[in-house]
């Protein structure tokens, strides 16, 4: 047998009584706990905020009472009674304030959508030119960006309005393009189509063709037939689509009558027009936005590793192929988040058109309607609510798209 070693009795650590805290008070310990502190701080903050709101609202109630005003959204159904210089949806002074709100929203959205589309296009081109190997081109793009970025947008809008669009000749002496399009200091006039067929059919036709084109594109991508046959089939598909489109235009065109603007006294009658204020705001904002987007695009392109350029050069890609096949697809991932932000800013910046009297939401609703009705709280919260909804929806959509484009990390 193996002798078992004699086990020493396990030496337990000397039991020390916990040091008696001098003047130990349970309340202090309780107050020093993190959870208690968190609760107390949050309670205090909440209490102060509620108190502030109570104070503000009691003031507001008192002031409204003193001025004989009431709070409520009933004014939205009242007749507005003032004219709006330009609106895309039918409007006349006999309509309600709700209609004024809608007119303001459509004008704002149309202006910002136009700015976003053209600003992104021009900005992408300028951003790529800024990285050109040709030093002159790169410097020209740089000058454009620096000049545009460092002058406040408001100054640019007023410059385009007063120095360019308002300086155009009056309607009688304005520029005419083939007696169909007219450009003068009131705006840009163009013919419009009128028809007895309800407009919804035109919308349906356009949607059908867009969907058809999309379907053909999907078809062209799918399948793994041999290349020539497939491309022939796809070409046939596109051909049918185009033929149908032309046929539709011809057939629908027979039911259309054109209203062409023509000089009548001091003004042009007929057709439709885009006011000079829209033109000035659009040009100024597009230029400004394109400079911001150009910087975004440049930063995105420069974030790509140098090895990618070299690898593309190694397999013999031309400069254009490198851009299209290697750089842009990768740069998109870096560009999208700031680009989304830039679009949000474009929507918010469209409010500056108020300075030149373009009837967008701030101008028609926040200025004119507040002056007419005095319902400041309601109107300002409605306008802010509109901007918040637009901002949130754009950022939601772009976050979705961004999640789709980014690398999937597992």
């Amino acid at each position, binding site marked *: 047998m193996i002798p078992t070693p004699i086990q020493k009795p396990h030496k337990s650590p000397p039991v020390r009584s916990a040091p008696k805290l001098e003047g130990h008070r349970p309340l202090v310990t309780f107050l020093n706990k993190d959870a208690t502190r968190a609760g107390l701080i949050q309670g205090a903050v909440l209490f102060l905020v509620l108190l502030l709101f109570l104070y503000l609202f009691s003031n507001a109630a008192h002031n409204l009472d003193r001025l004989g005003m009431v709070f409520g959204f009933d004014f939205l159904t009242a007749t507005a009674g003032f004219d709006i210089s330009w609106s895309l949806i039918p409007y006349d002074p006999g309509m309600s304030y709700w209609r004024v709100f809608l007119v303001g929203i459509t004008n704002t959205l149309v202006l910002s959508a136009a700015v976003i589309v053209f600003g992104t296009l021009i900005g992408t081109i300028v951003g790529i030119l800024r990285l050109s190997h040709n030093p*002159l081109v790169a410097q020209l793009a740089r000058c454009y960006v620096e000049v545009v970025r460092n002058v406040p947008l408001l100054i640019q809008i007023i410059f385009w309005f007063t120095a360019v669009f308002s300086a155009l000749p009056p309607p009688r002496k304005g520029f005419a393009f083939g007696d169909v399009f007219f450009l003068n200091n009131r705006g840009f006039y163009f013919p419009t189509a009128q028809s007895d067929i309800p407009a919804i059919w035109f919308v349906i036709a356009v949607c059908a063709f867009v969907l058809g084109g999309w379907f053909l594109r999907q078809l062209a991508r799918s399948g793994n037939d041999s290349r020539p046959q497939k491309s022939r089939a796809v070409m046939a598909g596109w051909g049918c689509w185009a033929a149908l489109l032309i046929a539709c235009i011809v057939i629908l065109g027979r039911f259309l009558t054109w209203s062409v603007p023509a000089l009548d006294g001091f003004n042009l009658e007929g057709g439709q027009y885009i006011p000079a204020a829209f033109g000035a705001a659009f040009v100024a904002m597009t230029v400004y936005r394109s400079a911001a987007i150009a910087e975004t695009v440049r930063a995105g392109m420069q974030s790509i590793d140098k090895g990618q350029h070299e690898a593309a050069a190694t397999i013999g890609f031309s400069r254009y192929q490198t851009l299209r096949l290697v750089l842009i697809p990768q740069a998109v991932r870096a560009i999208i988040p700031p680009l989304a932000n830039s679009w949000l800013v474009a929507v918010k910046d469209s409010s500056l058109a108020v300075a030149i009297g373009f009837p967008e939401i701030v101008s028609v609703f926040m200025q004119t309607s507040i002056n007419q009705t005095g319902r400041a709280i309601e109107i300002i919260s409605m306008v802010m609510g509109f901007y918040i909804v637009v901002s949130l929806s754009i950022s939601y959509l772009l976050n979705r798209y961004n999640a789709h484009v980014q690398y999937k990390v597992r």
Partner: protein
Amino acid sequence: MSNKTGLKQFVAKPARLPTQNDQTIIRRIHSRCFNTIGNSILTISVVVLGWYVISAALDWAVFNAVWHASTRRECMNISPEGACWAGVISWFNGLIYGRYPTDQQWRINLGFILAVMWLFPLSCQKIAYRNFILLSWIGLYPFFGAYLFLGGTFGVDIGVFHGVLTCLASGFFILLYANWLLAILNKPHLCEIFQPLASRLFNRWSQPLCLLFVWLVLSLPAAAVLSQVQLQPVAIERWGGLFLTLIIATFAITMSIPIGVILALGRQSTLPVVHWLSLLVIELVRAVPLITVLFMAVTLLPIFLPSDMELNKLSQVLFAVCIFAGAYMAENIRGGLQAIPRGQYEAAQALGLGYWFTMLLIVLPQALRLMIPNIMTSFISILKDTTLVSIIGLFDIMLMARNISNDKDWIGLHTEPIAMISILFFVLCYSMSQYSLNLEKRLKVDRS
């Protein structure tokens, strides 16, 4: 299709000659501007476009311009093609000072010079307590400036609180420059001069305490002088031009940092109530345009504040611009806070620092330093955004420039004032952005 195997025989091309290293300028121009036909066309068109734009601009602004005339009609008679700078020159004073009384404009110049002089020591590496100089500028100079620009007499137009702070500000400024002057002259500084007197009053003696004492002592003669001076009161409504633009921009820039820090810390907080409140404020303000915030301040503040509290338009606008700039700054600072490695927080905790000490001593200095480029970009956009106050009727440089065309002598003179302030803003913003690039480079060198 003819090639059944689908493979091509690889035939090596003869190796290209190595690129020549001795590139002359002409060769470099050739290789970058005229290497292909397309590029040559591009180059030539850029040169032609550039020449056309520059020559047209110079023709308008310099060669055909009119510098001396008394009315716009006279300008048109002399040279209808060129710019009429005479109108801008005759309104130049208005563009800079707004409608401030002409004989009082020295006060604005003085205030500007003092503000710059107060900040100047910050750029000198050897000066001690630079943080305090910056803090004093933020905390004290506004009161001094308000006294100088508003005018009035102590005890009549100027309240006790405002008056005391103005005196303290003057005392601080005198202390700053007196000490500096003594240091340059290699004389003992004010603390040492005052030591015999002060050591009788205090038992414990340290330099900060001494400086505090000297500052308070120096404020007394300043108070005595200032209480005798009677500056002509100038109403806020008469402030305008570049002066007003700079006041709003500087105020918003300085206030945006503390507001931004508080909101960013709130947003990063683990306390749900604080977190959600900060998040709500930041996101709501960032989702709406500045012009709506300005309208809100101008129309809603009078409703939500007590009826006996009358705010002038400038303070309403300052409130709106500060909140707006603060929310944007909060997002910048949050980016900095998130970039600080976890270890820094843990190290601070290990040292036994609490939340506020961790933030103030360890995290925020690093976060702010990291975010300097973004913060500078924000400053530039604040400066540009101040032009919006013209929409709600403050006579900043933008509205002054627009108003020139309403003057009966210069009716319709739109382009020249706009061009002039565009150049001004370009110079200001461009130099700020170049400075920030410079700063970024310097800090990068520091870190490595």
